[in-house]
């Protein structure tokens, strides 16, 4: 492990590190790195290997190298592309709604009023609710006939009362988006609130003196200075949304066009026992998510550098 740590470094010849300090660093880091290497890095490599094999638990003994067959099969299957489309639609709509709602909530919470601390606690409640429970809650609310939503809609004479929400394509995805927005818009709001709190008041005062309206102050002061926080929050949420699994699993088991990338891979792996094909789907999901992840690491690169640099 020490060798690995040393190899990663680019000695700049600027300063010699105490060898004792370096050895201690290696010793203190190695438990974490061993766990991460064994349970994250190694399985990823193994997943790639599995994805290159035709392998099925249903047919004992069937295990042969298949090259890129699993990938060609995945890329040629309409189910895979449906999952891609569903995942991207879900991610796009829910993250956009979460940003809009989260920003509105953050701006309200940033105002000084009595009970602000209480509101912050209240806002954390959906975040504390398990994703599975959030799915159950919204499924209960949209239960056909018995649920709150159909009853309220029919009392108000609005359309949608007779619809089996989770039983119809489009509507099912809408409930999924709603469940996600409810649970995570508050999280977004708290991240953005933290961003708002570091904007100095002087800037607003100066803008006011110059005669800027509230709207102009929002556009010209708040938004530009909040952009870094917005970016990080967006990437955080996008990464989560692309990986979504719990919500479609509990709400519909993937029926009615709600199968996401994680769910289709999981179904092939566990229900259909297609280890090779399922692994190929997992690796494809991994590739999509890691592309966004690189963007994330780039965005927070400054923070990492700040943490890594010597004080």
């Amino acid at each position, binding site marked *: 492990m020490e060798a690995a*740590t*040393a190899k990663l*470094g*680019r*000695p700049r010849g600027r300063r010699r*590190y105490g060898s004792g*300090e370096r050895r*201690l660093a290696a010793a*203190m880091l190695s*438990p*974490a790195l061993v*766990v991460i290497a064994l*349970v994250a890095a*190694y*399985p*990823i490599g193994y997943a790639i290997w*599995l994805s290159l094999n035709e392998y099925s638990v249903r047919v004992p003994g069937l295990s042969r190298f298949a090259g890129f067959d699993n990938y060609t099969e995945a890329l040629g299957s309409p189910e895979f592309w449906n999952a891609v489309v569903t995942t991207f639609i879900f991610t796009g709509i829910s993250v956009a709604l979460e940003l809009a709602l989260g920003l509105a909530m953050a701006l*309200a*919470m940033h105002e*000084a*009023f009595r009970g602000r601390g209480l*509101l*912050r606690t209240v806002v*954390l*409640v*959906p975040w*504390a*609710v*398990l994703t*599975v429970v959030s799915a*159950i*809650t919204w499924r*209960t*609310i949209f*239960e056909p006939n*018995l649920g*709150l939503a159909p009853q*309220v809609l029919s009392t108000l004479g609005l359309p949608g009362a007779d619809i089996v929400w989770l039983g119809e394509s489009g509507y099912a995805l809408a409930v999924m988006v709603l469940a996600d927005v409810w649970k995570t818009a508050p*999280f977004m709001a708290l*991240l953005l609130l933290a961003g708002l709190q570091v*904007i100095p008041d*002087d800037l607003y*005062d100066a803008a006011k003196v110059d005669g800027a309206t509230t709207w102009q102050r929002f556009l010209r002061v708040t938004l530009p200075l909040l952009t870094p*926080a917005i970016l990080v929050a967006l990437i955080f949420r996008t990464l989560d949304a692309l*990986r979504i*699994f*719990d919500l479609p*699993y509990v709400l519909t088991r993937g029926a009615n066009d709600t199968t996401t*990338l994680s769910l289709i891979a*999981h179904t092939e792996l566990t229900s259909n026992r297609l280890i090779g094909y399922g*692994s190929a789907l*997992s*690796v494809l*999901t*991994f590739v999509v*998510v890691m592309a966004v992840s690189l963007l994330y*690491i780039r965005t927070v690169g400054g923070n990492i550098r700040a*943490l*890594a640099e*010597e004080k």
Partner: protein
Amino acid sequence: MATRVETRPRTPTRAPARAAQTRRPRRRWVKPVLLWLAVVLIGVFCLFPFYWLINVSLKTGPDLSSADLLPPSPSLENYSSIFENSDFTAALRNSVIITGVTTVLALLVGSFAAYALARLRFPGKFWLLAVILSISTFPAIAIAAPIFKLWTDIGIYDTYIGLILPYLTFALPLAIYILASFFREIPKELEEAALVDGATHFQAFRKVVLPLAAPGLVTAGLLTAFFVWNEFLLAVTLTSSPDAFTVPVAVANFTGSQEFEIPLGTISAASVVITIPLVILVIIFQKRIVAGMTAGAVKG
């Protein structure tokens, strides 16, 4: 920057605001009313769905299909029935043990790594941190199949340790990041004093830094515990019996088995039981949790 904001008076904008009021007198009440409206809406949006679940959990029989805001004849029947369900109580015990062990291990292993990253000098730190952080963005599905196969081969499928290991891996990056941020805030002079007095680096870490970073440990521990308690994909893939399955799996299974008549009341009660501990923790530790959530997001 931040300190300057704090030292400013609470209402620095009064004078210009008054000038504006002479032009537009309506403004004085419009803003507070809109703000309170927003606050009430946010409160209802955040609390109502969970309240509705509690409401349903207290209903039985035909009341379940009513849209009443309060249960007409509240009953704890659903709660007593879930605690008689041995699968559910087993899952509760499993989740408590798995969450507890993972959290303690993540803090132990994570604080070592975080101290090295925050304080010790060695090359390649930036890349190491970047790699560790990128692990937290791995989709769990990508390691689910290989781990399922590996665990079956070595015989730890459907066991506590089979879940604790992957949970530790996913929890460590965030724990390390939060702890490293906290360790850096502790004045270096304190450790240097200990070093001058003849302590080793490791003693300085254990006796000086760790006690001072207690708030950071609480924050990292809470976020780890929330993650483990909530995790579903690996739990549903790597367990198959009440020996190891955790509460989200137990509650989700409740529903799968009864396709035609979903036991609304008992599912709701079970959902409430597994969520209430988290809600209580959020109420107690609101500030700590928000600090942890935002640690990675808006520093500097």
